[in-house]
């Protein structure tokens, strides 16, 4: 893939002549934020905010404020409504925005995954139609990639798009789309050709979500969240001009999308504003374990102190690793897939964080009087693997690191070079009633 042609690579080019000085920008942003953005409500954790039903509407409002103030889409190109600034500007803005309520729900996947992919592979018409509306908060996007039958093997998907004159007719099902129920558009990968090897028969489409023939069901997760959705397509007509990239070359688009996703989940995307957890650098601001140690009266126990400190160190090392990897990629010293490094780090660190939380919660993780912090940790432990599954499992990241960074031999694929209709794959589950 000749990534040197892609729009999103421009973010790491030298800043354009006349780009605002970083410190001046920081001062201007600080003043503007204080005047315009609502302060963070300390009573709601970002996680709780995430779960609010109204968060989509609220995020659009907040994004509109940023947009009107000229602080939306900082790293997006100016011709599509962005500000054309550098990563450093974005980082400064994020730092300054920590005390304020920010439209965080737009960061992933809209800003960090879908918009960059559209930038890279959309037609000029598609980009002009959608990117400005994304930046202004008018459009929320999701990806329709994974399928119930698929798992890690994305390219074995079985949702079909059959050409019929000027349209493609879509049938099948997608899953794990985050917030599809509140979103407007999706990038959808579907199979358009069955008699070729699996990667070569896929096409990527822009799909309007809320239309006849598409049913969106929210999936209840173990922690009570219903962010993720499953969609069912029943003879949905998609105009041919909604194809992104080339017909039957959707895998190229999806690969780039997954690259942006790894960046996003690992915390390395330049297209996001604000950060969960409030103050501090990426991931370094968590204080939940300290609070837990205090709540259980065990801050003086050396075992507890060791664990709290270990977690703190892990968080800081994670932030330092992101800096290193993004620098490595932008200077060409690391290959693109190096993003899998901080993606895997973030996931395994999240697991370790949960394990430590469970240890610190002690007896209170099993049964507790209402409102106990320890009980929250018991509930959170149920979702321990979430970060290790979303956006490519840890196993896939380890494959990528060993094969595409370290150059070790590829894993044997039984479906390699075989026409897809001759390969054993999982059946698509029937639609629940």
């Amino acid at each position, binding site marked *: 893939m000749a990534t040197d042609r892609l729009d999103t690579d421009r973010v790491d080019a030298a800043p354009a002549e006349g780009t605002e000085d970083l410190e001046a920008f920081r001062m201007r942003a600080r003043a503007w934020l204080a005047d315009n953005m609502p302060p963070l409500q300390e009573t709601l954790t970002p996680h709780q905010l995430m779960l609010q039903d109204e968060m989509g509407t609220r995020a659009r409002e907040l994004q509109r404020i940023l947009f009107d103030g000229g602080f939306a889409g900082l790293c997006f190109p100016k011709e599509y409504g962005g500000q054309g600034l550098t990563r450093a500007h974005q980082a400064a803005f994020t730092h300054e925005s920590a005390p304020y309520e920010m439209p965080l729900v737009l960061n992933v996947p809209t800003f960090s995954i879908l918009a960059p992919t559209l930038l890279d592979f959309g037609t000029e018409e598609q980009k002009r139609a959608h990117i400005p509306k994304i930046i202004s908060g008018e459009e929320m996007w999701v990806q329709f990639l994974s399928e119930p039958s698929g798992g890690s*093997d994305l390219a074995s998907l079985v949702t079909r798009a059959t050409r019929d004159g000027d349209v493609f007719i879509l049938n099948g099902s997608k899953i794990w789309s985050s917030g599809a129920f509140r979103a407007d558009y999706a990038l959808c990968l579907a199979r358009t050709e069955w008699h070729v090897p699996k990667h070569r028969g896929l096409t990527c489409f822009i799909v309007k979500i809320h239309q006849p023939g598409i049913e969106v069901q929210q999936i209840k997760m*173990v922690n009570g969240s219903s962010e993720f959705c499953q969609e069912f397509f029943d003879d949905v007509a998609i105009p041919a001009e909604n194809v992104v990239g080339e017909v039957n070359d959707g895998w190229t688009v999806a690969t780039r999308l997954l690259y942006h996703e790894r960046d996003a989940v690992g915390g390395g995307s330049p297209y996001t504003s604000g950060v969960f957890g409030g103050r501090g650098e990426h991931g370094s601001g968590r204080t939940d374990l300290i609070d837990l140690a205090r709540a259980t009266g065990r801050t003086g126990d050396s075992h507890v102190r060791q664990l709290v400190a270990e977690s703190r160190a892990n968080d800081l090392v994670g932030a330092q690793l992101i800096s290193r990897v993004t620098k490595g990629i932008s200077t060409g010293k690391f290959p693109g897939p190096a993003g899998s490094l901080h993606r895997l780090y973030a996931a395994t660190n999240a697991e370790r964080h949960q394990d430590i939380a469970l240890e610190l919660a002690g007896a209170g993780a*099993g*049964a507790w*009087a209402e409102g106990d912090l320890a009980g929250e940790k*018991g509930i959170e*432990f149920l979702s321990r693997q979430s970060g290790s*599954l979303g956006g490519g499992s840890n*196993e896939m990241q380890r494959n990528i690191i060993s094969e595409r960074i370290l150059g070790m031999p590829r894993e044997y*694929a039984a479906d390699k070079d075989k026409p897809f209709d001759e390969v054993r794959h999982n059946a698509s589950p029937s639609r629940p009633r």
Partner: protein
Amino acid sequence: MDLELTEDQELFRETTAKFLERTSPLSTVREWAEKEPAGFPADWWRQGAGLGWTSLLVSEDDGGGSVSGHGLLDLVIVAEEMGRGVAPGPLLPVNVVAAALSEYGTQDQRDRYLPDLLSGEAIASWCLTEKGAPGLPSGVGLQATRRGADFVLTGRKGPVEAGAEAEFFVVAALVDGEPTQFLVDADAPGVTVTRAEGLDLVRRFAMVELDDVVLPAAAVLGEAGAGAPQIERLFELAVALECASMAGVIDRVLSFTMEYSFDRYSFGRPLASYQALKHRFADMKLWTEASLATALAAARSVDAKSERAFEFVSVAKSYIGDRAPLILQDCVQLHGGIGVTWDHDLHLYIRRVVQDRALFGTPYDHRERIAQALRLEESHGH
């Protein structure tokens, strides 16, 4: 599973497993979680009692009886099967109280409390744990003060399993600084029971508040001030049951995750053919067999009232309590995204295991007991 079950025990295991499969499959557990305040219908528990679930630790004179002559080894069969099926029911508290009455109760106490407990008519629970203290015998701090010939209890206990369903409690307290246990009716003046939150969907807990609860000397279990060996004994029984439950859970979950890995294809190959996953399954198999081994060794030592029981239950609880959550989470990982959905059954098992892990001593607490058994000095110095 014990590799040396007698034929009778094997039959008992099958009967228990089939009953659970028939009456409380996971779909039913989910229903009961929604609509049964206790987590199970009362009649279901009486049926279980009819199968012997309540009487294995009670002497035949008191209306109990075991399958093999080793009541606890029979009972851990039930606990393990209940783990396998995430079954509800106050198996642990009822049996601990039944054992307490049978081993330490006066004839009057046994006559009054045991029959309904054994038949499943009544539920009872053990109040050991106190908030802010380790869930160990050493964590008992509730004061019982003498008032004439009576004792007055004031303080909080909990979380107490099936606390809201219990008709009476065995309450661990201190009389003049010495451990002493009391039989306390749930409707005694000054007793307030409040439902607590909990991770398990059907195993319910409560907080028990005692406010100037006046008890006659006849409410003392055994003798005042002589409760320490009782509490240690009941604690060991409780931990042995928890370990069997956790072992049952991981054995079952590992088994269906294995099956999934054979059935699920990725890149044209079953997941089970990937070496990185095979090696993780090998480790999980190892940890599961080690868990089954140490759970059984603990149960045997407690059943035999061996002096090693003190250490063996803590070895088992700390080992399984550490491994079981990791095994389950790796099984989630191997299932992929469906593993963290509400509709998949994995979280039912995680809830059960995390709760077993947390109550009656966390792995940390049990390692502290082991350190004490090793006579590791608590203060510094050469």
